[in-house]
């Protein structure tokens, strides 16, 4: 026992003593009428006064007595009235009654009320940034037979006087120090609010209360919810102050996010508008590329791992919805898994920031179109030249603006031929695409009014297409498309991870660049270990036949993953072409409809935990689900599942790779690996075959007399045919004449022209390569003679 000034302190706090396990709540008292009859006090007085008057007439001393009696009567009347006013003390006809409440008994986690009622609760001491989306699960899980209350109190606060301990270390460091500035900052974010929240569960059994709270806490999942202990709860219950003492700060922005979600979830027709119910698969197949965990719709807990399989990749995967950044994070997870399993990846994006994907592999190449990567549209890059010209023409249509009234390039015969000519020419660039406009007046074309409309439709379209070609190599995209291609498609796809960004200034140029790059990649030999990933395949939007043709080509090459923000803009046929899809949060209704179709989101007639529904409800989940959640439909499963994605890998920007241009420059004379007899073939022998000696003579002739006209060469050839021992009767006709053509194709001779008297003559001269080839042959001859 301790002593104080006032005496010894009691062993037990008197106040505490009052709070015993068993406590009575404040009683409730009231008064009750027992006799509603009114008292008679007033009538007796009247009788006395009457009697006094009679007595005064008969006997005056009797009047004095009567007056005295009257005064006493008045005094009595006064005291009677005051009683009647409410002081029951002492008034008849009233009874004081006390109504006693039940006895409360508190336990560690709940409070017991009278007659078998239990009360439990939890309070929120602090809020995480995300409150939305979980209440739906909570409300679905709750039984309507039990009581549940969610109490939230919000009150505005001023930043002045903000409790510094409420700030995190980062906030304390980075928020403005001045209170006024802080006030201004909060004002911009919807003001500062103090919030308190508590949930209460009420049930007939302790188990009910406990389970309800478990469900609630599980559904909310916020670590900052904590159960109220029984004593604290009981105290509050008695005071009828159930909100927790502790509050937390929130900005108006955050509140609006929570409250908006809250409102949508707690709308009047809540019973029939519960979103996001997906069936958990009874058995989850093993996946090759784990992306996350299935969300159990019953408990909203995380279930087994799931992801994509090789078969999914073979059949094609859509990753749709979300912003570019969100989709990139999802794709980063996919790429990470692919790399872990030894797959090679070519990642294509139109945003240069996507170069950070390269940080997922130690040795990754970062190529940026227009910087260290040039795509040469007239380089067929392994594709058959005749087919490539047609495909390139289709790709050029992507450059046409959607609202351009000038039409498409279908039937542009002259342009197709011009493209074919350029493609067939070695080392050609876009500048080599030309159409013979001899029929057109030079002054007409210089007026700048576009292609002349008097020409045929084919020529008109061809000239339109030529204008597009000229824009490519003369305009702002020249750095991307003009010049020899720096890397072949096969070289681009040879590394573990190649990130190719196409940061072009307009959407049309991006569209064309995507088409061109994918076209070239489709020419790479089939390789199931190489996965092509496109972050935003907007080039396919609104182009059904072209996109299907290109995607089919890509499928023939190998696995393909396409990303898109606006799924509804993708052609229907293309959407259906893919077997698997992962859909991120969407807000656009048409995108959601497309996603519903893609994912097979259907009507669930009876729910496990909810009333029957009459319309799609899963789709609204698409609007509200988090950025780390994806609805995944794998090829093997008919239904989509909600998946909580695993944490996104850290990305950091990488510098552009140093690309050495290979095999795209002028070839010097090189020895071929093939050997004839005991020596290698010379270049002239390679080119001219049996006519090598004649070809050498032509080259020597040109070396001396270049440039020689075609006629002179023809005469020389004719004379040589007669005199050359090599050109025997067995030599097929025309073979000699083709020597010049072969020499030209091999770039040993160059065709030109000269003008004499207004007449143009075609001539030929020796090229540097031709000179070297001649030197090589002469050296061989000398060595042969020396031997």
């Amino acid at each position: 026992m301790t002593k104080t000034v006032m005496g010894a302190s009691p062993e037990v706090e008197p106040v505490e003593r009052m709070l015993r396990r068993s406590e009575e709540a404040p009683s409730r008292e009231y008064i009750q009428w027992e006799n509603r009859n009114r008292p008679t006090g007033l009538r007796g007085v009247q009788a006395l006064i009457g009697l006094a008057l009679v007595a005064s007439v008969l006997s005056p001393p009797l009047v004095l007595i009567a007056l005295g009696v009257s005064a006493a009567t008045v005094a009595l009347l006064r005291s009677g009235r005051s009683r009647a006013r409410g002081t029951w003390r002492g008034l008849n006809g009233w009874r004081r009654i006390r109504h006693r409440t039940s006895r409360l008994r508190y336990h560690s986690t709940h409070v017991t009320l009278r007659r078998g009622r239990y009360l439990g609760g939890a309070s929120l001491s602090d809020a995480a940034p995300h409150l939305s989306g979980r209440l739906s699960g909570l409300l679905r899980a709750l039984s309507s037979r039990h009581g549940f209350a969610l109490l939230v109190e919000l009150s505005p606060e001023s930043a002045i006087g903000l409790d510094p301990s409420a700030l995190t270390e980062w906030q304390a460091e980075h928020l403005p120090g001045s209170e006024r500035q802080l006030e201004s900052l909060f004002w911009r974010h919807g003001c500062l609010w103090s919030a308190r929240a508590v949930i209460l569960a009420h049930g007939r059994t302790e188990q009910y209360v406990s389970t309800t709270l478990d469900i609630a806490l599980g559904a909310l999942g916020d670590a900052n919810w904590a159960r109220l202990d029984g004593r604290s709860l009981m105290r509050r219950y008695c005071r009828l102050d159930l909100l927790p003492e502790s509050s937390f700060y929130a900005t108006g922005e955050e509140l609006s996010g929570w409250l908006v979600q809250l409102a949508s979830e707690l709308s009047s027709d809540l019973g029939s508008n519960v979103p996001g119910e997906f069936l958990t698969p009874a058995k989850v197949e093993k996946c090759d590329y784990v992306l996350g965990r299935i969300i159990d719709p019953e408990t909203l807990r995380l279930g087994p791992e799931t992801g994509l399989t090789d078969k999914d990749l073979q059949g094609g995967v859509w990753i749709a919805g979300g912003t570019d950044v969100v989709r990139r994070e999802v794709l980063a997870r996919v790429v990470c898994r692919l790399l872990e399993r030894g797959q090679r990846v070519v990642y294509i994006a139109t945003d240069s920031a996507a170069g950070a994907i390269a940080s997922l592999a130690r040795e990754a190449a970062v190529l940026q179109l227009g910087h260290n990567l040039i795509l040469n549209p007239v380089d067929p890059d392994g594709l058959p030249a005749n087919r490539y010209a047609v495909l390139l023409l289709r790709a050029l249509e992507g450059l046409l603006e959607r609202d351009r009234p000038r039409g498409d390039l279908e039937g542009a015969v002259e342009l197709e031929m011009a493209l074919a000519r350029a493609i067939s020419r070695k080392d050609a660039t876009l500048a080599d695409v030309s159409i013979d406009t001899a029929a057109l007046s030079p002054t007409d074309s210089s007026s700048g009014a576009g292609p002349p409309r008097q020409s045929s439709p084919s020529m008109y379209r061809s000239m339109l297409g030529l204008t597009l070609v000229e824009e490519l190599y003369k305009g702002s995209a020249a750095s991307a498309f003009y010049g020899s291609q720096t890397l072949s498609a096969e070289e681009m796809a040879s590394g573990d991870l190649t990130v190719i960004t196409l940061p072009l200034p307009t959407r049309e140029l991006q569209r064309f660049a995507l088409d061109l790059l994918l076209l070239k990649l489709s020419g790479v030999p089939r390789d199931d270990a190489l996965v092509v990933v496109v972050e935003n395949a907007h080039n396919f939007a609104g182009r059904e036949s072209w996109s299907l043709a290109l995607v089919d080509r890509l499928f023939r090459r190998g696995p393909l993953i396409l990303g898109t923000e606006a799924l509804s803009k993708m052609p229907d046929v293309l959407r259906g072409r893919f077997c698997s899809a992962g859909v991120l949060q969407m807000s656009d209704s048409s995108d959601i409809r497309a996603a519903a179709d893609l994912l097979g989101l259907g009507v669930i007639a009876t729910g496990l935990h909810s009333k029957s529904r009459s319309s799609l409800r899963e789709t609204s989940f698409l609007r509200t689900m988090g950025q780390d959640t994806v609805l995944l439909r794998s090829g093997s499963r008919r239904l989509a599942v909600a998946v909580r994605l695993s944490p996104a890998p850290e990305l950091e920007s990488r510098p552009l790779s140093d690309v050495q241009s290979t095999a795209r420059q002028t070839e010097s004379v090189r020895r071929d690996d093939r050997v004839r007899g005991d020596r290698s073939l010379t270049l002239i022998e390679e080119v001219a075959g049996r006519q090598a000696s004649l070809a050498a003579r032509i080259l020597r002739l040109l070396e001396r007399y270049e440039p020689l006209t075609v006629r002179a060469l023809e005469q020389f050839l004719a004379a040589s045919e007669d005199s050359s021992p090599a050109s025997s009767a067995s030599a097929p006709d025309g073979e000699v004449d083709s020597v010049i053509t072969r020499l030209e194709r091999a770039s040993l001779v160059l065709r030109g022209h000269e003008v004499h008297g207004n007449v143009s003559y075609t001539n030929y001269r020796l090229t540097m390569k031709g000179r070297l080839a001649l030197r090589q042959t002469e050296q061989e001859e000398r060595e042969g003679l020396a031997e």
Partner: protein
Amino acid sequence: MTVAAIKSEVLDLLSSASLEPRGVQREAIERGLLEGASLMVCSPTGSGKTLVGEMAALRAVLSGERALYLVPLRALAAQVSSVMRERYQARGVRVGVTTGDFQTDAEYLADAEIIVTTFERADSLMRRRAPWLDEVGTVVVDEVQTIGERGRGARLESVLMRLRRLLPEVQIVALSATIGAPEELAEWLGCDLIVSEQRPVPLHYSIVPTRDKVQTLRNIVLATVRADGQSIVFARTRRDAESLASHLAPEIGRHMTSAEQREVSSELDSVENWYVSPPRALRGLLHHGVAFHHAGLSYSVRDLIERLFRRGLLRVVFATSTLSAGVDFPARTVIVTDVRSPSDHRTLISANQLHQMLGRAGRPGHDTMGMGIVLVGSKGEAETVRDRYFDVMEDAETGETVLFPRYDRVNSVLSDPEALTEQVLVALATLGESSPQKLVDEYFSDSFLSFCSVRDSRAPARVLPIDAVDARVAMECRAFSDTVRAASEGVLGHATIREKTETTIGGIVRDWDGNQHTCRFSSRTDATGLVEGPMCSCGQPVDRHGILCPHLVCLGITAATELGSLADYVVPLSLDVTSPVQVLVRLGLIEGAEGNALRATRLGRLVCRLYLRISTTREMLALLPLVDNGQDVVSLLRHLVSLEMGARLPDSFESFIAGLASTGIPLSKLAADAEIDEGDALGLVDASRWLLSAMAAVADHGGLDTAREIIQSLLVALDGRSEAFGKTVDGECETDGNTEP
């Protein structure tokens, strides 16, 4: 004779021919023409320039000297000589003419006092050092503006250079149609300038845009014919001219009276025209008052047409550009249907050429006004034509916009690679030995090219690339020196090479304003067979004067620095810059001499005397060793003739020549069988004879005896036939740019 006496005598000669000086003729006299002063007369067609030349020639004759009268066309030479003979021969003035036969020294001209010849023939005579050249006291150069014509101008310039070198005191009288900046040419020639823009008949210009040129042409022509006027329609090609003529003839013919038609028939059947046989297609048109006129017609037929037109029996003549120069042939309305060059559809004809055609509008004595009309296909084309050829001014009184002709400056074409190569050979053959630098400093410094480059602010950094040519030299030939210097210092911008092959060098040039241009040098041929050349996305890779845009210069200098030999190969090719010395050395026409000097070899001197073009020489040297038989000779001959004449010869030419040499079939029949126009046939025969003799000389030089014998036998046969149908010095085979059959 004294000067005064000479003057008086000249005027007397004129008066005997019923001629009295007027206008520019009088002014020329006042400026000392008859005292031996060198003059240049620049005036429109029909102003009487030719008489000025005649007076100068007469002065020389009366002074005891010879006069050399140079004209551009054989037809003109024939006309001038014919006129002068008619006027002065009776007074004892001997006039001689020589236009073909480059293989001879024209010894027969030794007696002639006035020698009328073409530019090329004069050049040939100078190379052969004709003995009478030293006696020439006056040189009259008609149509001296031809000095700016590609292909021919360089030879004229060379002639004038060498004449002045050979005869420092010679009187030069230059006659020119209206050109831009005539004072430059006059100053170079050392002549006083007389300019006159007075026309005998005022000329009104008009540009008519139309979607249907034929219909519009029809309307204009018929309107003129109905107003009792005559029209000349200039077409781009021979075929166009013939086609238009046959298309419009019936309607025009409805305006011919039967009397006029009878008169045409009478003219055709007259004794004068017995030997004139117009082609059947033309004969039918003549009765409709319509004719076509081009170099494919024989001189006699053309002369017939001209006479009929002057008499008014022909209302409309459809012609090619042969009619534009020299021949006096005015009409009330002149219509030009196409301003594209006959040889290159991508380029337009020169302003001087267009105005020379339009200048024929307005017949003195018949018309009060002439109409010069240009038909175009669109408003855009009309704007281009207007900006290119005319100045537009507003008449203050009427408020109307009036078109005034804008003439091109005459520029030297000596820098053309083939021309320069040839002239280097000529220079070395003339001088004996010289170093390249000395050639530039001492010989070519007298050229019109050097003269202009000194005065022209738009002259490139290097005008005479004689020695070795690499990428940098090629850039200097096509760019200003400041631009080249700036590019070398990296001030113009930054070029990134994007394309480097054996035929193209391309890249992106970023200038300091941040603008980006795609540039390219290409030596490839495009779909039309022409070399692509330089290209720049700025839209004007090469301006009218051949100067490259700064972006291309930047790329070229960068390529020269980074790519070395590849750039040295591609860039000069794409810019058509070659090294004359390298070409001549490779062909064996020049060789090194002591020190840094060069000299012409025997073969080179021979080629120079033979008056062969370098390209012809090249082909000849390559193929002559392969000649084994007559067929080879004829085949080679056909090739060389087509090169020299600038004409596509049909395969039938070989049978024509063979038939001519081995049979007695008349020339006209052989030409008809070979589908060769008669006008061309005579010229082709002349050219064949000349080239055969050249081939024989070269074969002899090269020890190719077999070839020489075959060639000489063919030559002898042709010479024999030529004597039979007469020497053809009457103007065949000049080209009008129309080489289609």
